[in-house]
């Protein structure tokens, strides 16, 4: 069960209720008296009433309602019009007047404090989501609603994290169910992701899942992906490189952005000269991120058994102060874990991210993992025995 409408009144009662709202806006009872309502629902001239109510319900009237009054009134209008014709005619058609009315009352820019009583963008979103839930899953009007929702969010600058989870997790299944074509799915997906001005890791994961399903077929898509990844606060974005992305990067290796991105994901330090004039990205931010990755790359190239490093052994840094700052930033970004000993100028490594990307030879990593797992399996027996012995020891000591 998705959204369900339950109305306590009969249709005449609902129409009377709605006409009294319109009368209140008009400050006269002209509209309700013009309806000439009969005694029972069966005597209603549905077509005539539909026209009258539909024509009278316009954006000028709605804008006179407060935000709290608008949403229930609009739902009542949807219910009445659906009863006077069919729900398909009213909701399951993107040319329906309902959507035109809704677009006209949608705020076109972020609202100020003065607008506290006027219709809010969140109310419009709430109505769109209710209508979305009332529609059958294969209805292509759902695609239209999703597009409108993205427009509302863009215009009103509503926080992206409010909608990220629900739309992000369901967008592709919804579009597929509504028989949306691949080009439209791609367009809608990138429009949605680009609303995230914080370039969050959640969105990066959405991009990763999306590129797993759909190949990158245009420069624009590749540029969108690279720009998003480089702007993100997430330092290690190697997880984005699945087979589709790796293939695209390979075939676009001459692209300036792709060149920078290739260097970045392989843990090479990026310099200012790598940025061509046409590239509009935060240079210093990306250079700093690339230094962190280069540091992690150095650690990961060392043997798995080696866990302590002298400051002097670490390349690409000029002073111990710079190195310490870099190590702290790397720990904060989650690329490495470890402890600093400032007195002895040593760094003890606990964990480091490996740069595993698709389309490259990862045989060594597979073998390393296999041998580590085998060692781990054997050592677990030890833990079991140690715990058993300790338990017996405690019991024996306390009984003695």
């Amino acid at each position, binding site marked *: 069960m998705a959204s369900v409408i339950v109305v306590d009144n009969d249709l005449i009662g609902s129409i009377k209720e709605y006409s009294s*709202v319109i009368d209140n806006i008009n400050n006269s009872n002209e509209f309700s008296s013009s309806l000439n309502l009969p005694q029972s629902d069966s005597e209603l001239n549905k077509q005539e009433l539909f026209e009258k109510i539909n024509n009278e319900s316009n954006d000028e009237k709605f804008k006179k309602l407060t935000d*709290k009054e608008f949403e*229930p009134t609009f739902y009542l209008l949807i219910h009445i019009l659906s009863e006077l014709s069919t729900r398909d005619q009213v909701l399951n058609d993107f040319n329906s007047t309902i959507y035109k009315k809704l677009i006209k009352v949608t705020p076109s820019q972020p609202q100020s404090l003065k607008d506290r009583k006027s219709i809010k963008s969140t109310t419009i979103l709430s109505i769109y989501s209710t209508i979305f839930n009332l529609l059958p899953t294969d209805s292509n009007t759902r695609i239209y609603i999703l597009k409108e929702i993205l427009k509302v969010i863009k215009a009103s600058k509503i926080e992206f994290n409010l909608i990220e989870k629900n739309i992000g997790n369901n967008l592709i299944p919804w579009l597929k169910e509504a028989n949306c074509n691949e080009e439209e799915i791609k367009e809608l997906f990138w429009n949605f992701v680009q609303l995230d001005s914080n370039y969050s890791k959640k969105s990066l994961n959405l991009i990763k899942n999306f590129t797993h399903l759909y190949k990158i077929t245009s420069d624009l898509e590749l540029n969108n992906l690279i720009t998003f990844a480089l702007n993100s606060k997430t330092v290690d974005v190697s997880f984005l490189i699945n087979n589709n992305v790796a293939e695209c990067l390979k075939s676009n290796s001459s692209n300036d952005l792709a060149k920078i991105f290739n260097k970045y994901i392989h843990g090479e330090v990026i310099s200012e000269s790598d940025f061509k004039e046409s590239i509009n990205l935060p240079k210093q931010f990306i250079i700093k991120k690339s230094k962190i990755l280069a540091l992690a790359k150095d650690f990961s190239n060392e043997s798995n*058994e080696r866990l302590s490093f002298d400051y002097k052994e670490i390349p690409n840094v000029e002073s111990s102060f710079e190195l310490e700052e870099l190590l702290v930033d790397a720990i904060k970004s989650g690329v490495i874990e470890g402890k600093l000993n400032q007195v002895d100028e040593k760094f003890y490594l606990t964990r480091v991210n490996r740069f*595993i990307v698709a389309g490259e030879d990862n045989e060594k990593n597979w073998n390393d993992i296999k041998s580590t797992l085998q060692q781990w399996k054997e050592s677990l027996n030890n833990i079991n025995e140690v715990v058993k012995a300790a338990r017996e*020891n405690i019991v024996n000591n306390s009984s003695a």
Partner: protein
Amino acid sequence: MSSFMHLVRPNVLAPAVSSQNTGPISVKIHSSALLTMLEIVSKQVLNNKRVLGSLLGYRNEDGLLIEIRDAFMVPINENGDSITIDEPIHKSIYQLYKKSHPKEMVLGWFGSSNKIDDNTSLIHDFYSKGVDRAYPHPAIYLNIEYLNEQGQIISPKIMTYIGANIGQRSGTTNVSIGWKTTTINNSYIFTPVPNEIINNTISEKIAFNKFTKQNITNNTSVSSEVSNLSHLEEQLNNLQENIKIMIKFIESTNEQDRSKDENIDLIRQLSNSILNKPQLLTNPENLTKLFNDHNQDVIMIEYLTKAIKDQIELSSRLTAAAEAGKDTRQM
């Protein structure tokens, strides 16, 4: 995964709801509360009559995060279109519950039905208004679909809803030829909101996992086979089994399989987390020493705690005795 859309809380008829704090609602159901509800629903629903109860728990300040911690059944009498809720029983059980859980409140109600109808709307209205109910906050409706339309038992489907208003707000007065009438709004759009089942504590999680693992035998009694293994030992065995499966998987994959996206993700995740493992794990002597040291520390802390506790008790007894001695001398 929820296939419905929920972006913001709809406009609800509740004075405590501010239009400024609009965001998506999230309902967390504690596993113990869910078990209580399932027990009620499974017992009562077999005679094919509606069963309902009250939801109890916490709600955060902006009302967007709801935590269902407990539930109890409320008797009803449904006869065709009319429905009577035994309000005194709801009130007395809630008052009793409130004594032991003063910070918790009524969040809404739960029911078991395969369709939302006029009576759902009436019950929701009951929980949305009045004292000792969800008012002044909006009520949550949790539905456990346990029987299908043919009356057959199905795997329980749990859905949570919030009731958005339709039409004029309740309490609006319509003046008609000298009579002042009040419209009562029982019309709602039940909008689904996402929910998740959570465990309150680790021990609750262990118990819940054990419960779900138990086999239900043919005579419908739950198997009570008690394992001698400690929880730690059980976890270690599970872990060893998982590692064995993983090694077997790595051995069985060829180069083509290994280049698949999902396997690249797997190797990345494993490499990032276990390649630099602590050396301690492969050195049993060191491990034994550290573990025993840790145990000694714990025993020492326990000993000291007990000693301090005894000291405080002794001190209070001595003070009391000294006070009593002083009083006797004064007399």
